[in-house]
């Protein structure tokens, strides 16, 4: 009873860890924001971006069109992937339907060998798509006629292949992006709200009057935040790699775990600073949102930064989330290895150190 024993030291660490974990698990709102909402975003964005990649066009065919009707069955199947053709009996109805947007264009046979395409300029991309597709069909037919006439093979043939696997599929940037955002949100909020609420309720003061070391208080918070972040990572990867989402993990994907750890500590340090600055939970909420929202948008958590102005890309280097998102992308699905992850981890740890030192300076046991 006279000296703090080893038992009381480890007991305080275990007790505080348990308290914080229970508080998190029983807090439905926290659980929702930490797990459910990011997953909902993954589902939503996953389907949203999937639709955006295909440029399927619907056309109305008026009367017989020789080029289209004479396409052989196997080529017809290929054509159907990009073009859906419906027969419309008369021109006037077809024009109206194109104007309304029911069809992207109408095709009819003109005098002589002419194929007439009439399109709406409302959707430039689709208008271009229709023209390109019909153009290539006409050219091919033309070529075949020419070849049959001259009994010669084609002089030039175009061979195409997809490069999609080398570029980013939506799920490949969505998974690390939304995971990073989820981890940042729960780590920052967890650290800052528990600090504010414990100070406001005078629990910090009560802890100060118990033989509990500051190491046990900070250590238990680190442990719980880390466990939550790892659970988020596991659930996210499990969902993203299902056939529905189709994320394929490359060789060194496990490097995402140490990356997540280092980033979590960096976010936690931010939370400790906002928690030290804010006097009430409401203020902490506001400050945290002001930090998290711009950081998420400017770090490429929701969309890739490749097409953003260069100043945004420059600015993004300030945020730890950017490094997590970029490196996680690299190791998860672009075959990145230790060489990609290590510098990021080092940087994140350095960030953690500097920001924690700032939090330490701002820290106060009491609000008075």
């Amino acid at each position, binding site marked *: 009873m006279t*000296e*703090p024993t080893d038992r*009381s030291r480890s*007991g305080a660490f275990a007790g505080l860890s348990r308290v914080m974990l229970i508080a998190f698990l029983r807090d439905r709102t926290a659980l929702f924001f930490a797990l459910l909402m990011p997953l909902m975003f993954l589902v939503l964005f996953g389907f949203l971006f999937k639709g955006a990649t295909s440029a399927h066009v619907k056309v109305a065919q008026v009367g017989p069109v020789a080029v289209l009707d004479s396409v052989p069955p196997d080529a017809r199947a290929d054509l159907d992937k990009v073009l859906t053709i419906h027969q419309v009996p008369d021109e006037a109805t077809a024009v109206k339907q194109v104007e309304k947007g029911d069809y992207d264009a109408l095709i009819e046979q003109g005098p002589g060998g002419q194929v007439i395409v009439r399109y709406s300029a409302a959707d430039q991309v689709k208008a271009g798509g229709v023209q390109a597709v019909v153009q290539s069909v006409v050219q091919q037919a033309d070529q075949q006629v020419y070849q049959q006439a001259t009994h010669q093979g084609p002089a030039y043939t175009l061979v195409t292949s997809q490069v999609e696997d080398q570029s980013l599929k939506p799920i490949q940037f969505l998974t690390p992006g939304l995971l990073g955002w989820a981890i940042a949100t729960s780590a920052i909020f967890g650290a800052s709200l528990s600090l504010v609420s414990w100070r406001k309720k005078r629990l910090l003061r009560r802890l100060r009057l*118990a033989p*509990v070391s500051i190491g046990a208080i900070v250590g238990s918070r680190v442990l719980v935040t880390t466990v939550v972040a790892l659970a988020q990572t596991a659930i996210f990867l499990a969902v993203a790699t299902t056939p529905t989402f189709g994320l394929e993990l490359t060789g060194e994907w496990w490097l995402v775990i140490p990356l997540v750890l280092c980033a979590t500590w960096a976010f936690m340090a931010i939370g400790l600073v906002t928690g030290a600055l804010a006097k009430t939970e409401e203020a902490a909420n506001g400050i945290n949102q002001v930090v998290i929202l711009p950081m998420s948008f400017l770090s490429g958590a929701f969309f890739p930064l490749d097409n953003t102005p260069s100043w945004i890309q420059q600015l993004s280097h300030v945020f730890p989330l950017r490094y997590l998102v970029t490196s996680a992308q690299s190791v998860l699905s672009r075959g990145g290895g230790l060489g990609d992850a290590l510098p990021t981890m080092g940087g994140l740890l350095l960030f953690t150190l500097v920001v924690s030192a700032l939090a330490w300076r701002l820290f106060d*046991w*009491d609000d008075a």
Partner: protein
Amino acid sequence: MTTAITADGIRKRYGDVQAVDGVSLTVRAGEFFGLLGPNGAGKTTTLEILEGIREADEGRVELLGLPPWPRNPRLLPRIGVQFQASAFFDRLTARETIRTFASFYGVGARQADGWLERVGLTDSAAVRTDKMSGGQAQRLSIACALVHDPELVFLDEPTTGLDPQARRNLWDLLRDINAEGRTVLLTTHYLDEAEVLCDRVAVMDHGKVLRTGAPAALVRDLDDTVRISVESGLLDVAAARELFTAAGAEVTAVHDDGVLLSIATRLPGPVLAVLGEQQALRGLEVRGATLEDVFLHLTGREYRA
């Protein structure tokens, strides 16, 4: 004689306010000591300095022979502190809460549960702390302050907001705690509570200790009038005055309001003798000064912050 708390000339200033202005106190081991004073008297700051939460600008403090400031991990297991606002962790039940506090001191779950039983919360052990009544929360917070069996306990307004039943039950608990040999320092706004529980009290105002002593001694020193009342109509007011004068009983006022005949005097003995001779004792009540009168006499009656 061992001393639990020694404070010698402590002072604390916040900006322009001299919150504590030279407070000296000695609390003996095993004593039940009350710290009284109106709001803004400097009680809270004094308590915080004694507990070791704040550093005094001047003066010396020792708890159980050790200075509480700076934070002394060897002293902390020997003191127990209960706060005014019940400081509990979010979304925990009563049992989880006390076990958590026990873990800070390396105290096992069984001893923690024992304290829960002792404050009568075994049936509410699975209730979340935010769903508990005021009395339950207060008892839990006292149990949390005592879970590690401290020698010296600080209780800050433990009965505020409780109903009379809960208050009396808590008094029994506090008496028991003290009877087990623990030193208790209590702050309270209820002077009847201090009078019943405390061996000695200190009345504070404007950052200073105005008077220290046993409640009964402070009341006696006040030398206030005693109010004696019997049923109205037993004696005529004018006749009563004459009888008292004849008997040499000195009275300051005699008054009949139609319900009671009231007599104020510093010497109740002769007055009671006269009333006895006249067979006029029906509905007799004798009321002396209380600690509350001492308090108001010392600190005045104007409103405080």
